[in-house]
């Protein structure tokens, strides 16, 4: 290659960076190179375009000095190519020109040049021009640094929102039983906010619906929604009362959320046999009871949940006729502002609703009203409207038992008692036996770990009532396993049991396995369990391990029941 490589400056120890001089006349190059070295630059020289581009690809230059008139590629063309290769870096190109006409100088800038100097030039002018470029580069670097910070922050926010969204979707999927007769209108706002609708069938066949709106957005809302969904499901499964559920949710949120965060909610339980419903509204807009064209507003009479230390909820009772409906909404609906900043008026909403025959769902009409009002404008808050056909919930339940659709499916249960408890089952063999040659095969080792940990936890803490924390005593670890062994030797006398239920659904490209382990113990409080922060703590690793390996782990019944979902 026809270049002259120059060594770093000797006169000036200050390192100002790496300069490239592109000029076909060696005398010019030498002179400029000498000046640049004196100013503290390391200098490379290229005598034509090809060399310039080759050098540019090899080194990260800080500044380029460019002659215009050269054979083959001229200075404009070379600059055009160089600038294309800079990416996000700012590499100033200064044209050196003997030309005096304005057009030629303007072309320098058009070609991507940053400045020009007329030949001949003095040392003082050269240094001044370089300092000006350095100042621009400094501003450029500061700006792109700030841009990167902003971009990173935006990504963190977006990740948080995606995560919150995912948690919400999963919560509703896992803790809510879909009820076909219900119709729900939901419009998420631009930034995820988190209106929550949970539904359940109670053991006596009644239907319970919770519509909630958190004051926080994104992750904050998701943090609150998590215990709400869990409490809702487990307390509904146990058939506990509205008042008990509201008190439990209130306690949990009060203890969990900061003062300014709370949850406005409506809770409705429909007694499908006796045609009445109980109703509690804390902080949501009026719910609307539609009875033969008459609309009654059921207003909020209570504080939202999570504000008071104790809640003594007394839900109201209402009789209904089979064609009656109840509409519950979040404040996003009437607060939905259009481009002109106008909210949706209550009058227009009531007008729309009363234009429908009794027994007919007004939801489509309201959707049309809302769409016309917003006219493509994105709402600022989540909009939720739940339409409950009070008289039709009963029909649906009788007509349609809950079944899951899956082409391929198996279910397997077992119970261990007495002496059999002491023999930890070989779960890998069990699973390969239950599901030979299926997609499950490559997950068997992981599942064996999960199942064995669950079984041992149920055995140790549920049946044998051993306390893990004794493992922290100096000789405790061995003592723990000795006690365990001693207890198991008399396993025949033990009153306890462990039950396991496995349900496996296959889809085209995978499937999911639901593991349910129950034990006869008195349980523990799952929320008191904390992952070991101290890596060298000798106990509490089992649950941490399961949590990492599985898609979800839910403790219920005070910890005597654990449900683990594993997708494959």
């Amino acid at each position, binding site marked *: 290659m026809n270049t002259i490589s120059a060594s770093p400056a000797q006169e000036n120890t200050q390192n100002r960076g790496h300069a490239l001089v592109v000029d076909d006349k060696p005398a010019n190059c030498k002179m400029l190179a000498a000046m640049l070295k004196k100013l503290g630059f390391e200098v490379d020289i290229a005598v034509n375009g090809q060399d310039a581009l080759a050098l540019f690809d090899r080194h990260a230059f800080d500044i380029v000095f460019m002659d215009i008139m050269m054979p083959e590629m001229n200075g404009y063309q070379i600059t055009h190519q160089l600038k294309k290769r800079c990416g996000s870096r700012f590499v100033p190109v200064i044209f050196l020109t003997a030309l005096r006409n304005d057009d030629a100088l303007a072309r320098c800038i058009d070609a991507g040049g940053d400045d020009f100097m007329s030949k001949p030039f003095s040392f003082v002018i050269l240094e001044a021009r370089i300092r000006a470029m350095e100042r621009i580069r400094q501003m450029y670097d500061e700006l792109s640094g700030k841009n990167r910070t902003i971009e990173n922050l935006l990504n963190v926010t977006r990740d948080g929102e995606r995560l919150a969204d995912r948690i919400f979707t999963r919560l509703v999927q896992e803790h809510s039983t879909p009820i076909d007769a219900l119709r729900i209108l939901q419009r998420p706002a631009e930034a995820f906010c988190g209106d929550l609708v949970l539904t359940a069938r109670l053991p006596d066949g009644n239907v319970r619906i919770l519509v909630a709106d958190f004051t926080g957005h994104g992750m904050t809302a998701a943090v609150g929604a998590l215990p709400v969904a869990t409490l809702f499901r487990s307390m509904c499964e146990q058939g506990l009362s509205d008042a008990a559920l509201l008190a439990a949710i209130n306690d949990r949120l009060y203890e969990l959320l900061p003062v300014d965060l709370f949850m406005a909610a409506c809770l409705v339980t429909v007694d499908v046999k006796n045609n009445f419903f109980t109703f509690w509204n804390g902080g949501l807009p009026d719910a609307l009871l539609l009875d033969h064209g008459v609309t009654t507003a059921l207003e909020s009479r209570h504080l939202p949940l999570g504000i008071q230390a104790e809640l003594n909820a007394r839900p109201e009772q209402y009789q209904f006729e089979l064609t009656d409906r109840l509409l519950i909404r979040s404040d996003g609906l009437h607060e939905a502002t259009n481009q002109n900043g106008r909210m949706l008026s209550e009058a227009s909403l009531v007008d729309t609703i009363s234009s429908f025959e009794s027994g007919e769902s007004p939801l489509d009409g309201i959707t049309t009203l809302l769409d016309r009002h917003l006219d493509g404008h994105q709402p600022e808050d989540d909009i939720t409207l739940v339409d409950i056909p009070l008289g039709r919930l009963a029909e649906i339940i009788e007509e349609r038992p809950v079944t899951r659709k899956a082409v391929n499916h198996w279910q397997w249960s077992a119970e261990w008692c007495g002496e059999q408890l002491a023999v930890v089952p070989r779960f890998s063999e069990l699973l390969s036996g239950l599901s030979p040659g299926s997609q499950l095969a490559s997950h068997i080792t992981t599942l064996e*770990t999960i199942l064995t940990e669950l079984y041992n936890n149920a055995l140790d803490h549920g049946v044998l009532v051993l306390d893990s924390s004794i493992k922290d005593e100096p000789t405790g670890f061995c003592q723990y*396993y000795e006690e365990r062994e001693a207890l198991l030797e008399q396993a025949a006398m033990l009153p306890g049991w462990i039950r396991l239920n496995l349900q496996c659904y296959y889809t085209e490209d995978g499937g999911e396995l639901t593991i349910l382990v129950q034990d006869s113990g008195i349980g523990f409080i799952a929320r008191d369990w904390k992952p070991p922060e101290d*890596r060298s703590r*000798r*106990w509490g*690793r089992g649950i941490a391990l399961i949590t990492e390996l599985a898609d979800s782990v839910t403790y219920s019944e005070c910890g005597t029941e654990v449900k683990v979902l594993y997708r494959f």
Partner: protein
Amino acid sequence: MIIQHHLDRERNQLTIQVPERFDFQANRAFREAYREQVLPSGRYIVDLGQARYMDSAALGMLLLLREHATAQDAAVAIHGANADLKRILTIARFEQLFEIF
């Protein structure tokens, strides 16, 4: 259960050979393998080459060995873990406490 171990005096290191299932049942035997050993500034090597399963109790046992070794200024290395076992060790962040190779 017996756990094989091998003492290399010249190198001042003890290799403990873990069985196929490294779980709570191995607790006592695992401890017996190193309890009497004193290897100042030496090395304890846990060979997982034959193991294909380990549980959370095994993680606890490794921590006990580490405590024993640290008191003598000796190191503990975990050797030969297969992909499944490596995953369990990684979930527990054991690479911060042990040399794993």
